[in-house]
């Protein structure tokens, strides 16, 4: 347990201190949302229809930003070998790293989403559901991202490849998350989409560490 706490603490400290890039995801999220009205026009009705999709897609893209360094930085300086040799199971390590990624990247997005929702004229009933769908959906994005990061550890400049591998995996989460918020905006019941999203995220969080750990083992062999 203490080893796990140490790893989590280390990941968060690295993310939060200079060069860690925790704030970068949030800044990227802000700027993507800022660009949207320039693309579709400033009319409030038009923005209201694309608000949910914009916020969700901006969140997906922002999640990707810091993923490529998730394991690569540790692999380059040899830390990953030490961590792999430590008594901490590799699966736990992957889970902790993904959790730290969510805490430093996903959680700020969830917190900023309602503010940005106001600028996009998001319909009032959708606010709680948008925040809830992001809060439930983004952990899954971090854990799926960990799989992609583990697969591309050894590839130099693998960032672009990582997006190609990971973004298609995000489609189900995006569908259910955006459907829940859209349903609320249109006065329909967001329950079913929300439950499917929650189930999906739980399955991802439960299974992704095993896949990620397998990919790391194959990479270190």
């Amino acid at each position, binding site marked *: 347990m203490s080893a796990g706490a140490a790893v989590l603490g280390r990941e968060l400290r690295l993310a939060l201190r200079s060069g860690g890039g925790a704030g970068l995801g949030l800044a990227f999220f802000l700027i993507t949302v800022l660009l949207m009205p320039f693309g579709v026009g400033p009319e409030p009705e038009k923005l209201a229809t694309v608000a949910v999709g914009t916020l969700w897609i901006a969140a997906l893209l922002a999640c990707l930003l810091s993923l490529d360094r998730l394991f690569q930085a540790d692999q380059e300086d040899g830390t990953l070998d030490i961590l792999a040799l430590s008594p901490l199971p590799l699966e736990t390590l992957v889970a902790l790293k993904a959790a730290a990624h969510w805490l430093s990247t996903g959680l700020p997005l969830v917190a900023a989403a309602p503010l940005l929702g106001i600028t996009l004229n998001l319909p009032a009933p959708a606010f709680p559901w948008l925040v809830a769908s992001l809060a439930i959906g983004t952990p899954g994005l971090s854990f799926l991202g960990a*799989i992609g990061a583990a697969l*591309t550890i*050894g590839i130099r400049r693998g960032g672009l*490849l990582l997006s190609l591998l990971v973004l*298609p995996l995000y*489609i*189900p989460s995006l569908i259910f998350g955006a*459907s829940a918020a859209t349903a609320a905006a249109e006065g329909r019941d967001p329950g079913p989409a929300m439950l499917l999203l929650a189930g999906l995220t739980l399955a991802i969080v439960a299974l992704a560490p095993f*896949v990620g750990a397998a990919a790391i083992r194959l990479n270190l062999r």
Partner: protein
Amino acid sequence: MSLWRYANPAEFMRVSGRVLPVLWALTAACLAIGLGWGFFIAPDDYQQGATVKILFIHVPAALMAINAWLMMLVTSLIWLVRRHHVSALAARAAAPVGATMTVIALLTGAIWGQPMWGTWWAWDPRLTSFFILFVFYLGYIALWEAVDEPDKAADLTSVLCLVGSVFALLSRYAVFFWSQGLHQGPSLSLDRTENVDNAFYWPLLVSIAGFVLLFLSLVLLRTRTEIRARRLRALQEVEARA
């Protein structure tokens, strides 16, 4: 004697070298008969007119687009479990063929959809899941290209193929949650009574057989190329060391 005998690259090269010409001949015959029958002999549809004929390409290509991924899944599993190199190389060989089949299905569908649905493209669940499948193929091919070490590339792409299979399937059902369909449901099967009319059924079946054979021939050919490329690489390494 078991099936695994053919996992030996030398044995595979010997057998596939003999089988391949026969396969090519069968492919050519089936495609010529199936497509010729479909294009020139089968009647026009009473509503769709001659447009229906593109389906003799569309349906087999779409079937092979999915089956190619299934084949990659099976061969990836065989590689992960039994570590036969031919298996991993066959998966690698199948990917571009499957991706091409996906593109053919999407393009022929668009050409058919323009006069029939009045649009080249609709965000229909079936169309969308094929688009998604195509992106999965691209990611898989890109990962093979990106990793230098052949065995590691085979390992990592196999893992990606497993994960991709789960999510391609998930997306396939998730898109039904998201959008209503324009595409028709299945109307072709070997065991149900409800089928397309016999006038279309038989030529379609022959063209499907032709596409299956085409896929097999292309995959065998490409696997042979991969094996030769691997052998070349090994020889170059020996040369470099000497």
